[in-house]
């Protein structure tokens, strides 16, 4: 990257960051009074905490020996310390409570908003972003953002205030000693940042080697059965030990170097302490009967010297945290900024019960502008007709279904259901008229019954069992530990792929809408089972307009219209007999599966 480009990039980043910060401040909106109050509490607490060593010093100056002790004075100061301590504790507690309310409240609100937004995002967004990525933005990023932002900000503020307060107090009491502190302290910061830079490289080596080892463990233990079948245990061990030895070496370095930060800062701190002690003690010695410093003051100074480096270390950590928080916020905002699907047209019609007419007129569609997918697709389906879509994997069969369900909208042309352009029908009522069984079965982590009732929440037990029986799912459901009340794990849990598919079929059978979409609905069921549920399917499809996607050609021969797709385009269209007679791509596909085996 050229320097100028980089500069531009930096500028852009900074502008982006500034925008993020402004947005964050807006987001804090209703929390602003709380935030101000929390900062006020932080200020009170840290100032009072700074006052206590001063008071202790004053008390000590009132007990210089027998006869030189001002008992009432000490008592007064003790009361003052008690007051300060109580007020500081109260302020700190209030600050903690306020911070909790803000962070937890913000997390809650952001997640709610993000989830609600996800429900309205177009599928084009969700299809092009991995689930893991979206989940991590909603969970990890939200947590880190709020934590880093509010706590980090608070720590930064407190730290800064403590440093300034300490400096001001020390400078006003005794500038000479304050200078000793100010001069030696940078040593510690310098040492800490030096070590941090050195250890960063070592940590990177360590995590790289660790990742290599994890990958190997993943591969060899995940496939241990194959390793065992080929008797490769010793070779695996040798490879593992080789990586392990390398890991040990860089791990030792990383662990040791990272653990020297504390001793080194403590060392510098101890030097500061000795410096303050000696200058303070020397100043305490009366010169010409007057000493310019007292033992009590020295006590206060030593307290400050002890705590002085701590906020520095904290602040440098906080800055990194704040940067990270902003990055997390930006990732989250990306989701929230994603435009939702346009709402239904105000005059959109509610489709009560579709009559089964479906028409596609000059439909064109592509997922991305640079790659044309469907062009000029025309199709008229009469009620009760069966349309099959066939073609090799990845040819875009599912795209047609995406359009019919309005998961995506056509680029041009129109799709009409019951004579109305589907863009003039509410999405809800359109989808209510379609029943869908997909290849990728989806079951929710809930009971079998709840999963079956998705389309008809008020179904009776008899209806549920009847649907399960029709889908040949009843017998295996009964074998589950709690029958219909068995709770399935996330994604269907322990059920086999075929069983999950049977449940999805039963789900549609329970409440069949007037039109059906079956996308590889039986792909995970073996051919014998498929034959068995054929009758149920036939009954289901009776009188319903039906779109089928399948790659087993034997299951679609009886369709009224077959669309043959290849590379996203419809290359042939017609009945089974017509297409065979045409001797084209369909004929080729059809024959290849019956090729004599030898």
């Amino acid at each position, binding site marked *: 990257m050229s320097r100028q480009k980089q500069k531009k990039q930096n500028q852009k980043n900074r502008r982006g960051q500034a925008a993020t910060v402004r947005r964050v401040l807006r987001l804090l909106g209703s929390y602003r009074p709380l935030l101000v109050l929390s900062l006020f509490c932080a200020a009170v607490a840290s100032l009072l905490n700074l006052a*206590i060593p001063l008071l*202790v010093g004053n008390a000590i100056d009132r*007990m210089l020996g*027998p006869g030189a002790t001002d008992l009432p004075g000490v008592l007064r100061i*003790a009361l003052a310390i008690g007051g300060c301590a109580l007020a500081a*504790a109260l302020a700190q507690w209030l600050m*903690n*409570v306020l911070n*909790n309310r803000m962070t937890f409240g913000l997390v809650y609100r952001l997640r*709610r908003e993000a989830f609600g937004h*996800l*429900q309205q995002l177009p599928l084009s967004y*969700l299809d092009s972003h991995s689930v893991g990525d979206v989940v991590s933005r909603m969970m990890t990023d939200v947590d880190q953002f709020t934590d880093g932002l509010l706590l980090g900000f608070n720590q930064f503020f407190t730290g800064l205030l403590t440093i300034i307060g300490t400096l001001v107090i020390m400078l006003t009491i005794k500038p000479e000693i304050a200078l000793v502190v100010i001069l030696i302290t940078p040593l510690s910061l310098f040492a800490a940042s030096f070590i941090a830079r050195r250890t960063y490289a070592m940590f990177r080596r360590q995590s790289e080697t660790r990742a290599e080892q*994890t*990958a190997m463990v993943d*591969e060899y*233990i*995940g*496939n241990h*059965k194959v390793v*065992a079948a*080929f*008797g*490769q245990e010793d070779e*695996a061990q040798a490879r593992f030990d080789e990586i*392990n030895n390398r890991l040990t070496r860089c*791990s030792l370095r990383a*662990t*040791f170097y990272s*653990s*020297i930060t504390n*001793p080194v800062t403590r*060392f510098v701190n*101890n030097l500061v*302490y*000795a410096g303050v*002690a*000696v200058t303070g*003690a020397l100043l305490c*010695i009366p010169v010409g009967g007057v000493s310019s410093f007292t033992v009590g003051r020295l006590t206060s100074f030593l307290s400050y010297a002890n705590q002085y480096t701590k906020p520095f270390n904290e602040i440098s950590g906080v800055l990194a945290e704040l940067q990270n928080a902003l990055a997390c916020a930006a990732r989250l905002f990306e989701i929230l900024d994603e435009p939702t699907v346009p709402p239904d047209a105000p005059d959109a019609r509610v489709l009560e019960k579709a009559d089964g007419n479906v028409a596609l007129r000059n439909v064109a569609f592509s997922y991305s502008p640079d790659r044309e997918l469907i062009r000029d697709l025309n199709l008229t389906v009469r009620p009760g007709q069966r349309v099959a879509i066939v073609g090799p994997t990845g040819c875009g069969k599912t795209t047609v279904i995406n359009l019919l*369900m309005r998961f995506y909208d056509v680029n041009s042309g129109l799709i009409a259901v019951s004579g109305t352009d589907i863009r003039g029908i509410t999405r*809800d009522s359109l*989808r209510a008229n379609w029943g869908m069984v997909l290849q990728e079965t*989806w079951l*929710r982590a809930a009971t079998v019954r709840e999963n079956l009732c*998705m389309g008809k929440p008020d179904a009776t037990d008899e209806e549920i069992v009847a649907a399960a029986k029709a889908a040949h799912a009843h017998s295996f459901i009964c074998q589950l530990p709690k029958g219909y009340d068995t709770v399935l794990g996330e994604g269907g849990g322990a059920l*086999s792929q075929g069983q999950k598919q049977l449940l999805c079929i039963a789900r549609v059978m329970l409440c069949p809408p007037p039109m059906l979409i079956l996308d590889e*609905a*039986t792909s995970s069921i*073996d051919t*014998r089972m*498929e034959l068995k549920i*054929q009758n149920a399917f036939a009954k289901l*499809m009776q009188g319903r307009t039906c779109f089928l996607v*399948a790659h087993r050609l034997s*299951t679609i*021969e009886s369709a009224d219209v077959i669309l043959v797709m290849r590379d996203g385009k419809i290359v042939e269209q017609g009945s089974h007999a017509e297409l065979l007679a045409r001797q084209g791509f369909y004929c080729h596909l059809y024959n*290849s599966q019956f090729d004599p*085996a*030898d």
Partner: protein
Amino acid sequence: MKKLLPFLKPYTKESIISPLFKLFEAGFDLLVPIVVKRMMDEGIPAGDRAQIWRLCGVLALFALAGIACSLTAQYFAARAAVGFGAGLRSALFRQIQGFSYEQTDKAGTSTLITRMTADINQMQTGVNMTLRLLLRSPIIVFGAMILAFTVNASCAWVFVVVIPLLAAVVFGIMLAGIPLYRRVQQNLDRVTSITRENLNGVRVIRAFRKEREETDRFEQANAAHNRIQNHVGRISALLNPVTMLIVNGGLIALLLSGAVRVEGGSMTTGDVFALTNYMSQILVELVKFADVIITVNKALACASRVESVLDMPVGMEVLDIPADPSAAGSAVCFRDAGLTYAGNAAPSVSGIDFTVRPGETVGIIGSTGSGKTSVVNLIPRFYDATEGAVLVNGRDVRSYPPGELRDRVAVVPQKAVLFRGTVRSNLLWGNGNATDEELWQALELAQAKDFIQQKPGGLDAPVSQNGRNFSGGQRQRLCIARALVRSSADILILDDSSSALDYATDAALRAALRHLPGKPTVFLISQRTASIQHADRILVLEEGRPVGLGSHAELLEGCPVYREIYESQFRKGGESA
């Protein structure tokens, strides 16, 4: 713990030196207030500048000695911890390598991977922290108290009150928090899983118009998470203010009782200074100690999980069973064999009873879950038959020494798995001594020669983790080649290993398998009748029971299940979707 301590044993020296030097360092830290006290009590009143400088030198020396001690301690702690982790990791890996299939099933691979990685890392940190801090903090706390007594016994009662009080607050809040934090985590997991489920099922959810219901479900979990977070927050918000309050209370008590005694002459100003100094040291250390306890606690939980893996018995027992003369001359002989997987109530297969001649090809067919793989898993003794027996070359499989049986059986598993390395390194798994010529021959038989030849590097072409840089069909063919390289094997098992191949390649593969060099006995599992119809005999399974055994023609005639399967694939499918 008994199984884990030996891993620390090679680092006994380190494990003693590290805390010992930490102890020295703590000692220097504790002596500092005494030195300053002497400055105050002797140097300043006497105006003895030389003594003040001397004492300052002592402080600097303490600082130097302190850093030297703590660096030594950190170094040895790191060595012990890292060495401990490395040894444990290697031993655990070895243990897992020795697991039988049943043991792997029982432990679960993802669990084993977590034990190997995250758990051991956590334990390594635990050892490191234990050596460095577990001793230091109590020593400082109690050392401060003891020194307080030497400074002024009559004032030291404050420490006797404050320390237990502080400890009670710090550990009380910590202990109250641990179970709550677990609940916070559970709630968070639930919010995560609802989000993930929602994203995975977005099509179904929108098709069934469940967006609102989903939002409500999420809202409930989200609100529950918020409530528990606030609950935990209210408790942990107390920690800092309350401990500070206690320490400041102690400070006040020290000042007041100190002032009285200074007036009475039984105590010096320096004494008061030293005591107040110890008071603040105690607080810092107690908070650190609470952190260490949490780390150590986590490490202990990991330790018991790792230990449970180390405690599992390894491998399978070799039994002394004499060869059975009645099975002489057979390649594989099933004697009413059955298999019930551990934890299952019903057998997955049972009543398998037939004998296979050397060189015979046996097809096995049946629906998903009918027990096809379970039958062949008995041959290389991946699992032990729970009823009956399985004999290979006339000998019970349980009487073969480990390794020998698996050398005679080559398996192409259902899941086509390759390992990171090169094509060659993967093929050599079959037989480490195979020549390139033999490798190419196996590739040719497995219909994989063409695409390997086209790959840059040929046999040395890289294979990425799990073979991801090859397509499913290519992986399957490479797995077949890997098995064919095993020339010592006289039994070859192909478990549904052509499912990702197109019809033409599948046919060519089957033709090649019929003319294998050495004429091995072949077991062919498939769901496609086309793939097995030319086998010498076909075993038909239904729900774990054999329902037919014979040639294709015989079964079409006499086995209704086989006929149904065949017809479902070869006759017009009719009305199905």
